[in-house]
């Protein structure tokens, strides 16, 4: 796996082609309208932070992008590939998109190394020794190569989340989705995960992060998307949305999370 070096300055990267195009997305859980006409376009190598109160549909939106949830109306296109309601389409999409979860979801019965090599060996038909080499390099990159033979239950939450990042990267995705990756972590461990994410952002990965880490947003995000009640309320550069919001809902939310 060649990880792009830090030489590409990510400020210029927004000029790339469209990575994700979400148009008029609507989704219901039974009667409940979770996503209301959501449209969002993400350029290649762009870093988007989605924030908003709980129940605003942030997680549902990125789960739809990965086809972990089905939407009822609208379209999702990833690098020109439209997401259809069949397994083949989902497979194509998931090949390009990696995802991180709030609860890490490592496979507890496999060692950390096996967690990373499973996908490459069985889906990309890479010889075992090569997959091990590649995954070891990735584990080194996230700073836990020395724990490769341990099991997920034996390491801390922060370390688990970093392994989860390595596991996703092993499939060489073009887009990474983060579903509140630090919400289940102790304050001391949040930083170690954010550092890896920042490093990833600088390496030119296209990222959508659902997170409440506003500092992270200010530091690396190209755009911040604020969602409430299943709608996108406002979108813009972090200084604008976080520093000088247009809408009262945004400002109320920011007051709440910054007040403690």
């Amino acid at each position, binding site marked *: 796996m060649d990880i792009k070096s830090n030489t590409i300055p990510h400020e210029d990267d927004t000029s790339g082609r469209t990575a994700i195009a979400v148009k008029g997305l609507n989704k219901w859980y039974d009667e409940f309208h979770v996503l209301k006409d959501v449209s969002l376009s993400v350029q290649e190598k762009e870093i988007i932070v989605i924030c908003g109160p709980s129940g605003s549909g942030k997680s549902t939106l990125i789960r739809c992008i990965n086809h972990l949830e089905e939407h009822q109306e609208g379209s999702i296109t990833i690098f020109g590939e439209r997401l259809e309601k069949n*397994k083949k389409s989902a497979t194509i999409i998931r090949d390009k998109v990696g995802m991180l979860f709030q609860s890490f979801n490592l496979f507890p019965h496999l060692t950390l190394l096996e967690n990373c090599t499973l996908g490459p060996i069985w889906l990309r038909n890479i010889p075992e020794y090569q997959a091990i080499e590649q995954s070891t390099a990735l584990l080194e990159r996230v700073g836990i190569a020395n724990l490769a033979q341990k099991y997920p239950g034996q390491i801390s939450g922060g370390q688990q989340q970093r392994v989860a990042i390595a596991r996703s990267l092993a499939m060489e995705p073009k887009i990474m989705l983060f579903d509140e990756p630090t919400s289940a972590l102790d304050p001391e461990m949040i930083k170690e995960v954010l550092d890896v994410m920042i490093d990833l952002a600088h390496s030119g990965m296209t990222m959508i992060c659902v997170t409440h880490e506003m500092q992270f947003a200010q530091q690396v995000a190209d755009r911040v998307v604020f969602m409430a009640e299943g709608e996108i309320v406002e979108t813009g550069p972090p200084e604008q949305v976080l520093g000088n919001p247009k809408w009262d809902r945004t400002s109320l939310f920011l007051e709440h999370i910054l007040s403690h």
Partner: protein
Amino acid sequence: MENQQTTKSELLKFVPSPSRPPVTITYGPIGWLKKNLFGNIWNTLLTIAVFTLLFLLLKPFLEWTVLKAVWTASTRRECIDISPDGACWAGIFPWVNNLIYGLYPDTLQWRINLGIGIGILWFIPLALKKAQQKMIFSLMGVLLYPFLANYLFLGGDRSNFHYIMACAGLAYLLILYVNIILTYLNRKRVEEYLEPFLERFCRKNATRWAYLTIWMFITVIIAFILRNQTLEHVSVDAWGGLFLTLIISGVSIAMALPIGIILALGRRSEMPIIKWFSLCTIELVRSVPMITVLFMSVTMLPLFFPNTMELNKLVQVLVAVCLFAGAYMAETVRGGLQAIPRGQYDAAKSVGLGYWHTMIFIILPQALRAMIPNIVTSFISLFKDTTLVSIIGLFDIMLMARNISIDKNWLGLHSEPLVAISVLFFVFCYTMSQYSQRLEKKLNTNR
């Protein structure tokens, strides 16, 4: 910034205090007795009462089984003459051979010993640390061993396919052991010696092809050596005793898990036909007593097959028992599947794994692991339930034991054989439960 640095250097340095070994409180055996049995007057009285009761209950049993038992005699009459209220173990000994091998001819019993021995050999490597690919060779065992066993136990003229499969089984076992020995000597595996020669012809999977080549080569050699050996045919009617019990329970235990997994996955499937088929099978089989299923398999199964096809009783019983065991196992497996959090499915999907990959690598290993106690409980009860086949006239160990009482020398000897096989069953079942506990401990260290 400068301020911060100066304050930093003034801070006290935190050094964690060293860990201490845990405080252990050890009581000697006398201390334990004092604390638990004779702590106060009430406890002392209770202890004495319980021990007296135990003594009164166990004394007649001990007298019957050991103290007043008769070990050598030639008829039951003699036994009663020697000691009227002791067990007559003498009656068991002349029947030991029948209890183990049924009516299998004495001169051919080495075939059973050999067959069971090979079966044990096949699964010994499971307990070895350095043995590789445990899943694969246990799967191969389930696939190939039946041919080998059938060849040995049944004998007679077998089809070429059957013969080749039996030889392939032997060859596989041979390579397995050679590889294990080589691994323990820190040498390369057999196929890796051949690999360089094959790399010229096939770049991809050279190791796999090397392995297949060696396997086929040895199979052919074994087939050639054994080409003129025909084993005498022994009809299934002559099978019996512990041997038959082991065959029925072995086959049903080996089949229960795969059938159970398939039915459990089927029941959770989103495809309606598969779902309803699995659901109906499970519910139908589970709601009928096992004896009924056994009777039906003997009386009704032949109706579904053409007249020309001759089914033997054993095969019918095996089909019934496997189906029965599979349906129960399906519910156990389903319980395990439900214990897996949704996040595991999400993670597997986001890595890109499809349904079968997800099931085989992620979900089933975890589900089965969580269900080990339940699975082993099913296995144990299955092992004991196989004694029911005596009711439809298969001479398993149970019917053999009952038959002692109608032997003219040992007429009316009912209790002793039953006690004897109870002990035997206890040994088998307790071993299984101990093994499962060891397995659990071993697998739990990973967490």
